[in-house]
């Protein structure tokens, strides 16, 4: 094998490695990209059964805790000020989960229009608002960043959002 052949072989191996990596990336991306959808865009964008991240504020007074077959469950509504979606979740809610606060949940829309969450993320301090949620609030016109900090989270559900379900 000549020097040139060897170099070609090395180059080929490198290209094969990168090619495999690229192919793996593309296939995995088509299946595993998770979009963030705020409640007001769920009707338009969400596909029943496909995972996405739903985020907004937990509506004041909407949390109902229960238990199914010994497993704790929770049911609450998530709002972005323009629409709300009912979320069901079984498991332990995170420490920082509170009514009136920003939350991001991962799960899928059910045929009955509720959202079944497999993960609930609320892992920052209580003044923290997830950036996606902040952006959604800005879009629905409930917060103009030019006018300063967002209004207190507890007042969000008094904005009378139109209910989706």
């Amino acid at each position, binding site marked *: 094998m000549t020097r040139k052949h060897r170099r070609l*072989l090395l180059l080929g191996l490198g290209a094969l490695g990168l090619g*495999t990596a690229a192919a*793996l990336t593309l296939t995995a991306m088509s299946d595993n990209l998770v979009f963030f959808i705020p409640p007001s865009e769920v009707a338009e964008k969400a596909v029943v059964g496909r995972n996405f991240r739903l985020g907004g504020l937990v509506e004041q007074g909407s949390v109902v805790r229960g238990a199914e077959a010994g497993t704790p469950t929770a049911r609450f509504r998530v709002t972005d000020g323009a629409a709300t979606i009912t979320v069901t979740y079984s498991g332990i809610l995170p420490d920082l989960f509170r009514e009136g606060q920003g939350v991001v949940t991962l799960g899928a829309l059910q045929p009955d229009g509720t959202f079944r969450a497999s993960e609930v993320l609320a892992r920052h301090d209580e003044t923290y608002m997830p950036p996606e949620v902040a952006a959604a609030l800005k879009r629905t016109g409930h917060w103009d960043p030019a006018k300063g900090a967002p209004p207190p989270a507890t007042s969000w559900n008094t904005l009378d959002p139109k209910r989706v379900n």
Partner: protein
Amino acid sequence: MIPELGHFALALAFAIAVAQAALPLWGAQTRDARLMAAGPALAAGQFLAVLTAFFALMWSYAVSDFSVVNVAENSHSLKPLLYKLTGTWGNHEGSLLLWCTMLAGCGAAVAGFGRGLPTALRARVIGVLGLVAAGFLLFALTTSNPFDRLWPPPDDGRDLNPLLQDPGLAFHPPLLYAGYVGFSVAFAFAVAALIEGRVDAAWGRWVRPWTLAAWSLLTGGIALGSWWAYYELGWGGYWFWDPVENASLLPWLTGTALLHSAIVVEKRDALRIWTVLLAIATFSFSLLGTFLVRSGVLNSVHAFANDPARGLFILVLLALTIGGALALFAWRAPGMAPTGLFAPISREGALVLNNILLCSMAAVVATGTMYPLFADFLFGHKLSVGAPFFNATVLPLAAPLLAAMAVGPVLAWKRARLEEAARRLWPAALVAAAVGLAAGFGWSAVPALGFAGAAWLIGGAVVDIAGRARWSMARLAGIPRAAWGGAVAHAGLGVTVAGIAGMTLAVDRSVLLHPGESAGLGGYDWRLIAVADGRGPNFSLRQARIEVTRSGDHVVTLTPQRRFYPVQRMTTTEAAIHTTGLADIYAVLGEERDGAAVLRLHLNPLAPWIWIGALIMALGGALSLSDRRLRVGAPARRRAALPAGARPA
């Protein structure tokens, strides 16, 4: 007074760093011995100055000087002293100062340990380190001064995020940073070599110990962070593919590749240009990690800084450092003729395969980590890339890497025969197959493959050492420590792989229990005895007592807690973990309702092996580092064996 002293020391350090960058580099270019000789002294001076600043800040934390903004925002008088001290780096400004301290320490280390290096090379390495340090010190001084004062001082501070008040996390940043920053030395060596236009076997020998040290520290730092996430976040998982975790994994992957390709440079004088590029890439990923964490562009548990000005400054710093190094590479690398011939089946070939696979893994992890950023900037899509993506892309690349890892060390340099490798490796293959089959009957394919891979790696390491010793104690004792280190590190990865495979069999269950009731999980009976209140130094707590029994025999009493930190108005979960060595019995206390407590129970098989394996890997690195042949400055025992390209210092 002390904070002003610190501020002054920081500014002084910047001035020294500028001199450290300018004088030795200029001296090396004009062959001015006096200018070159200034380098080591300036590097030591810079380290002293930054260290003074660092201890000034630590002092302000220790005495709770709330007239310093940084202390007022991140500390509290009631916090235990350990967390007051470690709180020094629990915030943006302090951690940046820690970063600068480490970087200056690297410069001082090169000055101190690098006496055996050629004068010009050492001057250039120290100069490049000074250049990087000057950039970061300027960043600290202009956008993130930790010594800003506050008047009037508040009565008390705002406290450190309670999640960070933990021994594991107290020492995770220093280790991780030491790893990140340690790669700056390899980077400086690469840039210096490009300036000189010469890379040879001696260069490989000089770069390797620095890379090894950085790699071992980074391995330890990542493991400590993962362990912290496991017990402190209370989700029962050990790796979340969080962007910041990925940011630390990227330099680890390319750093591992660098570690191996530097061996080829040292032993065979081949892959030189590639190794230089890897050294640049590894430190670039370290910088990228810093940028991602410090700029707050990524949404993560770690993102405590959210200031666009800082993000922009780091981005410019990043672009200058990486862009400058790559431009230099593009200019100088074509002048370095490729050398070293080897057959595809050879030790070099195996190391090339290692590099290709590790870099491919780094590429997919980087893509998955950065894609949400680009999708947001370019298309305005808010999306995230989660664990399924990384599992689907990284595992298929990791599998052939593990398969090849045991083969590589038993192949001969230059030209090897696979039959010979097979003849030596059959015991390892047999053990792996037996373990895989046994596991396959008990569980599904994925853990079975994982256990087989783990057995293959550990068996391969044993075969490697046994093959060198060939049943002779004298030969066993004569095996160089570098070879031991490699075998130990490979076996360590095997232990970690076994732990990861074990964790795919983890089970968990959320239950709602009244005191006296019990639930079953994983063959254990978990009975809630009581939930009671308690107090800690700066928090109040609720604590559950859970008695775990197995067929009537007492195993352990677990006491998971929920802590409430009044200053930050934050609740944290303290998981209770009992390890048997083969499994972790793990319980988390959730909320309470109507006298019943929500509990999450986990049984995590082989969980501790993940971190034990990482520790073994880091120890393997340290063992290899202690090899006399690798220590620059140690008198070479066989002068004649010195590679032809090396010049006596």
